[in-house]
């Protein structure tokens, strides 16, 4: 068990290291380097100054050298300075991470709860009208362009009904709980609709698979009510494979958050990454992308851990080796 966990952690660390090099290399291919940007914003910088600055910041060195310098700085706790925010990267990153966690946490829980319920509901009567209807709406949720959904929600709730703000985060002086909450409502709805479809389909497939097992027939034969069979016996086992697939979807959820946050001007990680890439703020983009990768890896690790905890069969085989 400990050997398994440590090897997984080691693997994740290795992946993160490789990704950091890949992302660092990609940032080097972005248009314009910091000195070019400095020259374009300050006409007094001469070409000698530029050359001197390049040497000073080590920009004339090969990319591997620069990467190693950056890496050693990171390990000493120096993540660099954000150009567009004029703050250390960490000071920009942490509030955004908090905002995104709220958004992702809320929509992820909502989507799982909804997906599990409708999945079971559909699977309890497979190939019925109810099943087809759930399937249709699940497909619709998967297929709807997330940015268009966000625009439609703005159109309905902000333009036509005028009950919710079209974007932003928090009023200047909030007068009640609603003033802070109302900015989260539309982003959460939009992100939930975008992910609930696939969660429903996973749950439905896993339920149908489980309901075909022998022990379900036994449970029915010994006279348990359909409700007991469905929730007491089938649901717990069907949830197992769903945990893994849903955790793999975490990356997709983050991608969804990027779109949602950008459209609703919600100050989270996704919007920050987008703005950082668009605004040539490469220090920030680099660390934020790594943090997003790191979050996904941690999500996957947690799901694997949850799987081991939830499924005694795996735990037993793990102890034997």
């Amino acid at each position, binding site marked *: 068990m400990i050997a398994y966990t440590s090897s997984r952690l080691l693997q994740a660390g290795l*992946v993160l290291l490789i990704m950091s090099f890949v*992302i660092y290399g*990609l*940032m*080097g*291919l*972005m*248009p*314009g380097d910091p000195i070019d940007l400095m020259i374009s914003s300050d006409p007094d910088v001469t070409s000698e100054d530029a050359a001197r600055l390049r040497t000073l910041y080590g920009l004339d060195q090969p990319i591997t050298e620069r990467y190693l310098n950056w890496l050693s700085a990171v390990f000493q706790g120096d993540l660099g300075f954000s150009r567009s925010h004029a703050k250390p990267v960490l000071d920009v990153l942490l509030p955004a991470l908090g905002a995104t966690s709220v958004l992702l946490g809320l929509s992820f829980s909502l989507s799982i709860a909804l997906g599990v319920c409708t999945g079971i509901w559909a699977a309890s009567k497979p190939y019925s009208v109810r099943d087809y209807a759930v399937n*249709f709406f699940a*497909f*619709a949720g*998967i*297929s*709807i*362009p*997330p*940015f*268009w959904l966000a*625009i*439609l929600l*703005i*159109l309905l709730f902000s*333009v036509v009904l005028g009950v919710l703000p*079209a974007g932003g985060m928090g009023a200047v002086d909030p007068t009640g709980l609603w003033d802070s909450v109302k900015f989260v409502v539309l982003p959460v709805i939009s992100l939930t609709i975008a992910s609930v479809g696939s969660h429903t389909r996973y749950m439905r497939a896993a339920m*149908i698979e489980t309901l*075909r097992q022998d022990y379900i027939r036994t449970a029915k034969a010994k006279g348990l009510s359909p409700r007991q069979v469905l929730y007491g016996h089938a649901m717990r086992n069907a949830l197992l494979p769903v945990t893994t697939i849903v955790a*793999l979807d*975490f*990356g*997709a959820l*983050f*991608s*969804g958050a*990027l*779109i949602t946050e*950008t*459209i609703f001007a919600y100050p989270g990680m*996704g919007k920050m*990454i*987008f703005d950082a*890439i*668009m605004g040539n703020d490469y220090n920030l*983009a680099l660390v*934020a*992308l790594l943090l*997003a*990768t790191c*979050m*996904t*890896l941690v999500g*996957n690790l947690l799901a694997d851990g949850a799987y081991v905890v939830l499924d005694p069969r795996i735990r037993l085989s793990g102890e034997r080796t």
Partner: protein
Amino acid sequence: MSTLDHSLGTSGTSAGTLAFRRFLKHRLAVASLLMLTALVLGAMAAPVAEVLLDTDAKQVNLFGRFAAPTMAHPLGTDELGRDVLVRLMYGGQVSLFVGATAAIIAAVFGTAVGLLAGYTGGRFDNLLMRLTDGVIALPLLPFLIVLAALDISKLGLPVSIIHDENVSLYRIIVIVALFGWTTTARLVRAGTLSLKSRPFVLAAHANGASSLRIMLVHILPNLISPITVSTTLAMGNIILLESVLSFLGLGIQPPTPSWGNLLTNAQELIWEAPSLACYPGLLIFVTVIACNFVGDGLQDALDPRALEK
């Protein structure tokens, strides 16, 4: 041949016909296929519509902005006074072309990776599958945005490519294809693993067939069904991704219209012209859901085991 068929009780019905019959039973899939055909034909008819309506898709007319639907402009005009219907049709050409091309490239790449990994096995298999898992688990969109924002002149490509007017088109095709191959690769690998120890593959081996020949002539034809299904499903996802990137201003560049970039301005104009925000999104939605239903129908039709369950 027919006597053999009769003795087997199949009365001369080929596997293909059976699959086709099963597909016809999936009504949503059939309707979706018709819908996709209609969309493709509609997109191809753009120049005809342009002539019939006597308008120019690129002609800016600032006096005719946000015109209501009339006979001359069935869906009205946009913020620059251009005909919305014709722009949507031209946008469809671009979006559908990108979707189909990138899906095919992704399918070829995924098939190659899956075949190699499954057939070679061992460490190479492990490496390729780790790579695939990695791409699946990554938060895709931020990386796609980085790739779309790269300065391609720093990649050392020939100048003729960098200054090609269609460069944004090629670029978006490559970018979305880069991430659309993973499902195909996994399915093909699984199929190859189970096929490579079958008697007919062993027989080919004994006959002295090369590895390449075994992979392409003996294994690949048996995997056409899963590849078709996953390519259809990937096409939906790829059209969705293209629209997202174009919407964010990183994909197809205006004035070339695509369903994604037609929505770029829609958010700012939402108060003046809400209907402009509806049409392109609706078309993307219909296309993607149709691809998914066709994929679902193909899955049922080509894999009868799924129905028996």
